[in-house]
């Protein structure tokens, strides 16, 4: 039990947490320089590092007062950080492997700030029960309701997510472009291995590098997502949404619904073919500080009907069923001109290399001499066709809709995204009209919001300027009429 105003310290395991990567790196270097004076210096550096973090732990105190949390560090670089409960956006608990070994949890406190949205304001390690108790106490300050440490498990989630759902999410929520690039590297790696087997020489480094890039671009993110969202649970109590997930590192996240600035319903190409979609929320102040996706996921890739049901039950504030309109006929002209310019640039860029390749390869005998001279022009033609098809799909799918409280943009020829936004969360509106768009009398809108990664913007397709200007006008009308409640929306 923490007494208000009492100075406490983090759990000593924070010394291990903070110094581990540095110690491992230095220890590795010690083995490389074994028997030399450098090794002695490196060993001294390890001791110094441990002492540094020990001193930092020893001289850092935390006070949980009635109105604020005060983190104070009395080292050479003194620091005093005051976090009033009124400014705290979320308080989350997560546990990594080191935490599990020591029976601790990491308490992350985030404030409402666009400038430091990606980094938690305070990361504190405590004994597990103490961290849960503190999270519960702070939650009571923030949301007006306490979370009993074991209560989380008793709440029935709105939708259950099986390990198969998590694996499907991990594999198919990665963007199609990323999958495409990863596949290209995989194909190149296989090709290199195949040709090296054919010639009898061993595969050179190219195959391995391509394979490593494939792992980094495709396999790594998928595995990371599976580990992160294993045992995924989401539920809502009152005005607060709770998320729990994680295999190696476990996450417990909660935030008020009023902190949600926008909802994104996302479908990658493969997910669309499987009739699945996932939901992300734009919430400021949920930084995990671990470099992973900062946007909280409210629903993993799940069939569209379940996703819709979860959306309606979890965030009904972002469902109003407003109608959406497709881009007007005039937009077709702009998109066609853009596609023509892109294709022309592509053809011009490929013309010179095509002639060069033709001259160099035309004399090669056999099938290579028949195919290679035309490979580049054919690839260029295929790319131009892809641009035209993407333009057609983009015209067909891009939508814009306005309702009483919400408005939405639908974008994405390949990976589709529906962004539903509340007028009261709009910070700024920009409408742009390029020379071609002016010719056809359409414009594009860009709405600026406070997002999980700080400031972010969402763009529309081509619509009449007056239609897009209605967004800004509605924002202004809501402020003027008092419909906008600054108490709920101020950041």
């Amino acid at each position: 039990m923490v007494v208000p105003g009492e100075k406490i310290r983090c759990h000593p395991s924070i010394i291990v947490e903070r110094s581990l990567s540095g110690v491992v790196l230095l220890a590795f270097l010690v083995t490389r320089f074994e028997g030399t004076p450098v090794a002695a210096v490196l060993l001294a550096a390890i001791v110094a590092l441990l002492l540094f973090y020990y001193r930092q732990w020893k001289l850092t105190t935390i006070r949980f007062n009635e109105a604020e949390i005060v983190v104070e560090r009395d080292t050479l670089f003194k620091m005093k950080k005051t976090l009033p409960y009124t400014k705290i956006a979320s308080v989350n608990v997560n546990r990594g492997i080191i935490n599990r070994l020591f029976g601790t949890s990491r308490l992350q406190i985030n404030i409402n700030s666009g400038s430091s949205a990606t980094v938690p304001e305070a990361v504190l390690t405590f004994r597990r029960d103490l961290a849960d108790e503190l999270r519960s106490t702070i939650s009571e300050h923030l949301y007006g309701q306490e979370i009993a440490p074991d209560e989380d498990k008793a709440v029935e989630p709105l939708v259950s997510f099986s390990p198969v759902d998590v694996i499907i999410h991990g594999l198919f929520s990665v963007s199609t472009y990323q999958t495409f690039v990863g596949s290209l590297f995989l194909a190149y790696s296989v090709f290199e291995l195949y040709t090296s087997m054919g010639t009898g020489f061993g595969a050179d480094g190219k195959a391995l590098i391509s394979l490593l890039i494939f792992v980094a671009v495709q396999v790594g993110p998928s595995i990371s997502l599976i580990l992160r969202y294993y045992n995924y649970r989401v539920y809502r109590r009152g005005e607060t949404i709770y998320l729990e997930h994680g295999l190696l590192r476990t996450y417990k996240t909660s935030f008020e619904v009023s902190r949600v600035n926008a909802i994104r319903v996302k479908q990658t190409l493969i997910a669309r073919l499987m009739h699945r979609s996932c939901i992300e929320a734009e919430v400021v102040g949920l930084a995990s500080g671990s470099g992973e996706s900062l946007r909280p996921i409210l629903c993993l890739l799940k069939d569209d009907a379940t996703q819709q049901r979860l959306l309606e039950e979890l965030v009904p504030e972002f469902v109003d069923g407003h109608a959406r309109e497709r881009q007007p006929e005039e937009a077709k002209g702009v998109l066609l001109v853009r596609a023509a310019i892109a294709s022309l640039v592509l053809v011009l860029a490929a013309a010179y290399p095509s002639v060069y390749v033709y001259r160099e390869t035309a004399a090669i005998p056999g099938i290579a001499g028949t195919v290679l001279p035309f490979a580049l022009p054919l690839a260029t033609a295929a790319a131009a066709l892809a641009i035209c098809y993407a333009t057609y799909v983009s015209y067909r799918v891009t939508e814009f809709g306005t309702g009483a409280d919400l408005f939405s943009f639908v974008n994405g020829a390949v990976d589709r995204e529906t962004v539903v936004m509340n007028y009261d969360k709009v910070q700024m509106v920009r409408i742009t009209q390029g020379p071609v768009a002016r010719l056809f009398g359409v414009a594009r809108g860009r709405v600026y919001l406070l997002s999980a990664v700080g400031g972010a913007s969402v763009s529309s397709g081509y619509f009449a300027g007056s239609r897009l200007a209605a967004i800004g006008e509605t924002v202004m009308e809501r402020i003027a009429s008092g419909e906008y409640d600054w108490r709920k929306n101020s950041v």
Partner: protein
Amino acid sequence: MTYPGLVSRRTPADEGSPASGTNSAANGYRRLNWKCMLSMYIGHATLYLLLLAAYILVRSHAQGFLGFYYEPVMYAFTVLLAIVLVYTMAAPPVFYVRYRYRITDDRIDVRSGVLVLRHILVPIERVHQVEISRGPINSILGLAEVTITTAGGVATLSYLEVEEAERVAELLNSLVGRMLRERLSATPASLSGPAGD
């Protein structure tokens, strides 16, 4: 409350053209001082000289590095130089003619652009910070830039005369301050926050 000269009362969104003449206030819009063109010409010329230096360097030293791409790259560079030169010459007057801004007691409204026209609307309610900055060229010409920061992005009023920039910043600060004071007076102490009360 009125704000003579600089700000107009709440006005509906309009697509009207700007008033002719410097700082004329038809539709409440204001225009820039002609010195903005001079500042732009100097800035553009500096960048153009840098581009020209890069062109000369590439032409004289990059033949071996670029190999068979040398010729097409040089053609493309020449075309780029020509396009940038035309833009450098033509953009400042177009920018000057098209740029207009309006500050009412509830919004900041900026219309600008040379090739791409932009219309930016920032509700005063969303303004977090106002900053005046001056680069070396603008300092010589007595111009300044007002950067308006919201939680979601930044809007800029460019090439304002220093006095005008200071008036704009002061006005915005007073509008935001007034709004906050109104809120404080309208809010009972118990509603000032969910905690700590």
